[in-house]
């Protein structure tokens, strides 16, 4: 228990260490998530385009 | 009555959305100017802390001035201004709408970012607070005052210098009280009086500028 506490305390540097690692982790998770969402939106758009195209030509 | 205000506000915000870079670029201009000074002056933190209020305010003034140049120019060139002059509502409301949109696009982001930049100059917390407050009060005044100049420069091909000469004296009080408030706070005197003056100037500008600008626009578009 103590060791967990000590671990998060980081010898008094908690704000700085976790501030750095935290933001880095946040950004490096956010970027792939954003990309995945963009990809989904793109595929939805492509499907709509294809549907429109087939309606148009028929 | 306020239809035209919202109509123009909406149109201009839409235009800005279309070109999100507009927002970011004014912002980054501000950031860059603020960051340039240490490069020109040297990295010593004591000197930097001393000149910080002046630098921030001059940078805000320049950013606002630069951005204002285009306030009416595009509308003038593509003929939209003629249509605005022909709108069946008071022109000053319309002008107010344009200025409001302009401040939201170029002024507000700059204000919001300034605390972060304050750290670059190693400013203490309270000073940063006062800086934020003065910018929030002062930049709308700058936009309003500047709109007069922007309207005048549209037509007066020969008198551009004269116009900036006329507008600058109006900018200077804002600069002095704005930077002064921050400095007073930093030196422990409290910036209350300065802030009050800044607010009063903003109100005055709100009343006078739209009228003056509409008159100037009518002249310039002839």
């Amino acid at each position, binding site marked *: 228990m103590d060791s967990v506490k000590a671990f998060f305390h980081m010898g008094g540097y908690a704000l700085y260490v976790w501030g750095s690692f935290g933001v880095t982790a946040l950004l490096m998770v956010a970027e792939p998530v954003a990309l995945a969402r963009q990809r989904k939106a793109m595929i939805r758009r492509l499907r709509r385009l294809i549907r429109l195209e087939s309606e148009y030509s028929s | 009555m306020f239809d035209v205000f919202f109509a123009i506000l909406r*149109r201009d915000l839409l235009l800005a959305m279309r070109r999100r870079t507009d927002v970011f670029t004014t912002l980054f201009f501000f950031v860059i100017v603020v960051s340039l000074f240490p490069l020109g002056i040297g990295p010593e933190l004591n000197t930097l802390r001393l000149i910080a209020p002046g630098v921030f305010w001059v940078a805000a003034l320049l950013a606002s001035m630069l951005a204002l140049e285009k306030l009416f120019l595009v509308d003038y*060139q593509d003929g939209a201004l003629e249509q605005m002059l022909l709108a069946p509502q008071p022109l000053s409301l319309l002008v107010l709408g344009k200025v409001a949109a302009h401040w939201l696009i170029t002024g507000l982001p700059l204000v919001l970012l300034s605390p972060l930049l304050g750290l670059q100059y190693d400013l203490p917390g309270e000073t940063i607070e006062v800086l934020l407050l003065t910018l929030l009060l002062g930049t709308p005044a700058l936009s309003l005052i500047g709109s007069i100049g922007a309207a005048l420069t549209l037509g007066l091909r020969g008198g551009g210098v004269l116009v900036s000469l006329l507008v600058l004296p109006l900018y200077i009080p804002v600069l002095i009280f704005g930077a002064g408030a921050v400095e007073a706070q930093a030196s422990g005197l409290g910036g209350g009086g300065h802030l009050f003056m800044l607010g009063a100037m903003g109100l005055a500008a709100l009343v006078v500028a739209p009228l003056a600008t509409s008159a100037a626009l009518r002249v310039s578009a002839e």
Partner: protein
Amino acid sequence: MLEVVNLQCTRGDRRLFSGVAFQLEPGELLHLHGHNGSGKTTLMRALCGLVTPTQGEIRWKGAPIRRQREEYHAELLYLGHKNGIKDDLTGVENLRAACRLAGTPISEKEAWAVLEKLGLRGHEDLPSRVLSQGQQKRVALARLLVSRAPLWLLDEPFVGLDAAAVELLQSVVRDHVEEGGLVVLTTHQEVALTSGRVKRLRLGWKKDGHV
């Protein structure tokens, strides 16, 4: 309705025209013509109130337009050389913004319908910047189809339009006049304007056919 009395306009130190006078009643069209530089655009802008004449007066419903600017503007639609299209807005947005500004907002659906009528199908949602010269002009002209203003001032509306669009525009103008509207129009192209009451006014000092 629209009455012009002894109008004189001066640009720089050149007197463009003087003693211009006419009267336009509902259901009438005025075709303004004259050689390049004869002052047609200047007269048009004076009629809007954008240029102050050096002499004479322009009256709308009996009162000088200077005195009733907002009321007059509400009943007026002006399309000039520059068409007032915002480069970054799409055709639909441009049309809606212009209508909102003129105090007669229209719905998005209406806007799409009007632009389709003008042959811009498939281009409604492109930024106007990428439209061709003629397509931009069409977007500007779309306002005519939704306008409720009785007085139209059109400065060279046919410029840059292809034959089909010219045809369409002519019929729009014709309908407006037949429904009791007033139109002032300049153009160099010889176009069959309306079957209705057409007045003609000639400006300029050069004889026709001389350069």
